[in-house]
């Protein structure tokens, strides 16, 4: 009975599908929702040299930092400390968690450039290779193509950040041991809680890259040069950082995407403070929404002449 039902079901499925199919007359087996799946796009992107370089950097930089600490002098006691970086470098070798946190903060700009690379070159490189027009003529619907590219860029960005922090945590623990997270104030957080906070900090740092990622993505669909897209986004970040350092701008700076980039420090406070992070996340979300929407708008309406 059930088997027969199954057969009927399959038959009905075909019967239902065929009028739709005939309405838009696709080739047999073509379904817009099955074009350029995330897996396919991952396969296309992961074997690129730039992906290998990004992953390699993320894996090697923590090792280089370990070596730097190994050979360098660790005497910072006389120095004046004011920034997040300074406050973390003094306790960077207190344990694996400390080292991972320090590595994340010290390499934030590298990560930002990598994220800009992953988002900025994804469409522009296809345009420069000439493969974009063939994907669109396949046809991969433009929104679908953009969604897959966005998702893969996001996954790769998360992958790079997690890889860097993971390697730092692993080698840091191997060299300095599995110790509670020591804060510059002298407070020590137990490992379990510290791991949670490290995860949350990593998440927030990643989140703060979204405006730059959004701009890189917008530039990527607007111009056919990957270098231009990545460079433009990084330039934008540098300019906003300069602006957020100009105290004469006062309250206006709070609207800059990089102003709250160190708001994760609230997670190292006791008790934790999330106010600034919420503000920062909101600002980030607004930029990301506007920029990614603009990218989508631009790509779905533009003429593909590459």
């Amino acid at each position: 009975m059930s088997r027969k039902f199954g057969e009927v079901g399959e038959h009905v499925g075909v019967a239902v599908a065929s009028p739709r199919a005939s309405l838009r007359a696709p080739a047999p087996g073509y379904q817009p929702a099955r074009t350029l799946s995330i897996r396919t796009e991952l396969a296309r992107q992961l074997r690129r040299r730039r992906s290998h370089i990004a992953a390699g950097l993320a894996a090697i930089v923590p090792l280089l930092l370990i070596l730097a600490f190994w050979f360098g002098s660790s005497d910072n006691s006389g120095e004046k400390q004011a920034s997040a970086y300074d406050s973390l470098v003094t306790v960077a070798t207190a344990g694996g968690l400390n080292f991972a946190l320090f590595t994340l903060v010290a390499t934030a700009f590298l990560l930002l450039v990598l994220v800009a690379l992953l988002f900025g070159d994804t469409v522009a490189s296809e345009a420069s290779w000439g493969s974009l027009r063939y994907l669109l003529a396949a046809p991969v619907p433009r929104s679908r193509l953009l969604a897959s590219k966005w998702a893969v860029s996001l996954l790769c960005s998360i992958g790079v950040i997690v890889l860097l922090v993971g390697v730092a945590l692993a080698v840091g623990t191997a060299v300095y041991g599995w110790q509670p997270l020591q804060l510059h104030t002298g407070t020590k957080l137990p490992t379990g809680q510290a791991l949670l906070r490290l995860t949350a900090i990593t998440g927030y740092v990643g989140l703060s890259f979204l405006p730059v990622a959004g701009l890189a993505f917008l530039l990527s669909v607007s111009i056919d040069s990957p270098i231009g897209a990545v460079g433009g986004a990084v330039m934008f970040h540098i300019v906003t950082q300069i602006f957020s350092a100009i105290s004469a701008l006062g309250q206006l700076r709070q609207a800059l995407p990089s102003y709250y980039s160190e708001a994760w420090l609230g997670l190292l406070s006791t008790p934790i403070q999330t106010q600034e992070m919420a503000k920062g996340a909101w600002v980030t979300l607004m930029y990301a929404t506007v920029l990614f929407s603009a990218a989508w708008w631009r790509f779905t309406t533009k003429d593909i002449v590459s």
Partner: protein
Amino acid sequence: MPPKSTSSRRCGLFFRRKPVRWIAAGLVVLLLAAGALWWLSGGPEELIRTQARITVMSGPGRNEPVTLDTTLYRPSSASAAHPVPAVLLAHGFGNSKDGVSSDARRLARSGYAVLTWSARGFGASTGQVHLNDPDYEVADAQRLIDVLAQRNDIVHDGVGDPRVAAMGASYGGALALLLAGHDPRVDSVVAEITWNDLSRALFPNNAAMPNGSGTAPGVFKKAWAGALFGSNILRSPTNPAGIVNSANAVNSANAANQPSNANQLSAATCGRLSEPVCRMYLESATTGRASAQTQQLLYRSSPASVIDRIRAPTLLLQGAHDTLFPLDQADANARGISANGAPVHVAWFNGGHDAGAPTDAELTRLRDLTSEWLGHYLQRSEAQPASSFSYSNASGLGLSQPGVRITSYATAHYPGLSGNTAARGIALTGTAQHVANPPNGTPAALSSLPGLGALLSLAGNVPSVTGADREINGEHAQFDSALLHQPVTVVGAPTVGIRVSSSTSEAVLFAKLYDVNDNGDARLINDAAAPLRLTGLTSSLSDAKPVTVTLPAAAYTFDKGHRLRLVLATADQAYSGPAEPALYTVALAKNSPGITLPQVTARAQTSQDNGWQLVLAVSIAVVLAGVVGAVCIARWRRRHGSRGKPVLDVTLRDVPLAVRGLRKTYRGGFIAVSGVGFEVAANQVVGLLGPNGAGKTTTLRMLLGLIKPSGGEARIFGYRSEPGAPVLSNVGALVEGPGFLPHLSGRENLALYWRATGRPAQDAHMDDVLEVAALGEAIDRKVRTYSHGMKQRLAIAQAMLGMPRLLLLDEPTDGLDPPQIAVMRSVLQRYAVDGRAVLVSSHLLAEVEQTCSHVVVMHQGRSIAAGGVSEVIGGSTTVLLEVDDPERAAQLLRKLPQVEAVQHTGEGLVVTAPGDRSAMVAALVNAGIGIERVVPRRRLEDAFLSLIAQQPPVNPTVDPIMVDSVSAEPTSGVDA
């Protein structure tokens, strides 16, 4: 140009076809607007700013005129009908009314009339500095209240009694308190980082002897006094910027060295200090002691003198990093004013004279406290402030420099400096230690110095200078606690009992509390030292009486694993100790409980404002809803088709490609394609022929949905071709050269391309296609290494993946060598069977002729001819004749009616003759002329020129719509 019809049609399309985008745009705008509103909540009110020089009579006899430079800020809404309360905003020492202008504006925007003025002796006001003397500065301020009383746009509580708050920081704060003590018209006071008793602030003594000698004048705070008064001394009235010239410097140095000359003090020596103040400073700085006269002068200038008369509700904001006016000054004010029954709130904040500007969060907290306070006691609109005490404690690192993150706490009742719950005792250990007072107090330890303080402390919590750097061996005794097993927070002034013996019966010591972390780094709490002047000491420790030392008040947390360290040092750079060398012995008091740390039970105020968390959550929800909505609408549209023109034209169901009136105008006005129409029928190989720039590639891009046509349409098997139209899955394409991922092999490229179409792998016909590419072993090499021809073959193979029913190939033979071209021709001809069709674009007539069955000729963006190859090109009227007797043949041919021209060339005779050539050949044969060859002359130029000659001239300025309607007619129809 018919703009009306065009625009209305476009708008119609826009609304019908792009609901997703409109919704997304709407959401974005909404979010932005909400954010902007949140950001700007409470838009700024217009201000009216009035500057005036007001001359008032002050002095003991109220007969000494002084001109005050004032500015009144008031909201434009203030009027006689809507009067507002007033605020007298005083500035700090060495500053002027300009220093408080931003605070004044902020207050005025919240609905207060704010009067600022430069105090006498400062800024553009006349007079000399009397240090908040009741007869001078305080009298001046009372006259300013009189000025406010005359204004009808200010609320009055009685005749001549405006509702006014006195407000200020430091010098201005003391004035506010003194004014409230001297003038009952003051309705509220907000006093920031100010003093209670200037004599105790400048000559502090934190020791309480059993015999009550703790009230004796303490140790002169020489560094701070010098920073305040000394800088003023070197600032003559004619040189207000403070530029020191050598004469002045010498004068002041002389004056300082020779107090006996004090009665000859000149304006150049004292600057704008009044003579009594100047004399007081010079004397104190020289002797390090407070004379009775000095104490009297300082007391007159202290709120302590009128504290029992202050009945106005008072908000006291005191900085934790303030060695000039420490927290105990605010404590004395609070206790005095509370005793009168007036409401008081004491707020300790992370700042003060030693720190730089408070952090943003701390500034916000102080502003909120102030506006709450004034809102209730002055505007009488807000609820009564619930708490009487609030403080903040460093809890981490903040965003901006100096970058301390704080958490604030509050209690309902002010606990004073000894806490509101049982204090904690922490045992200290340490034997009696001998310490020496160095001659002339040098070398001296460093606790804090004016100006340096901000740098040293970084507002608090970073071990910047370790204890080892600060204390000098042989000059200090130290007593440590055991390691703390749990964090200990102190809120208030710790106390400790000590015993001291001295070789001179007197001793000056500096008590300091350090936090020592597990690396041994010691941090001086708030960089503050408690100076002790002990008198009547014995020479033997065994006889010494216990002394209770009150350490500087603080709100501070000692972390687990740290230890406390009490240090008693003999000299400090900030204070003026005895110059004579002396030897002291210092020990803890017998049976001492160690150090007593006051405890406060208070509630943390971190969750006070969750606005942003809420905004964030709502925004995330809206964005997610927007994305989900857009996806749903897109799906729905895909399933139900766009509602523009009909998707399917049933009459064209069996026609692989039908193009009608296709146009493309770019934004700059450039017309790339102005009117293209043709059909490709099943089993045809059609050539799209035209010179470079004719619009062939643009046309192909429009067929594939890559470029949006400005007009007209293309239908593939009857379905409209648009971006992403599913019917495009029946089309294989090569447009403007190959496009591959260079890091992958040819085979991987094809495989991944097929995977990207999402169609079943078995439909790809991969093997057949690879045969077409004929790349051999190279198929597994990276595409990066391919020659252009190899890429071109791979691209043709990719176009054939899945055996699409329509192939669109743009210049397919580009880069191929002749044998490969020949192969490709036969491939294409064999491909166009079973209902399939091929469209090949080319600029080479020969290629079209040899490959295609039909041809469409394009020129300047228009299709100008279409039909069978022989009809269009072979219909050329020119023939090349090779005969044995060209002369005779030419004569003969010229006589024939259909022959238009005969030309001799090196190859033979070129004859232009439309129509049937057989008559021509028959005539030559009949005349006995031997014919070797008859070849149609089909040069591209000839074909084009003859075709173009038949066309109306193309005018690029002609309106595209018109071109469309003209060209659509004659260019359609290719016979099957």
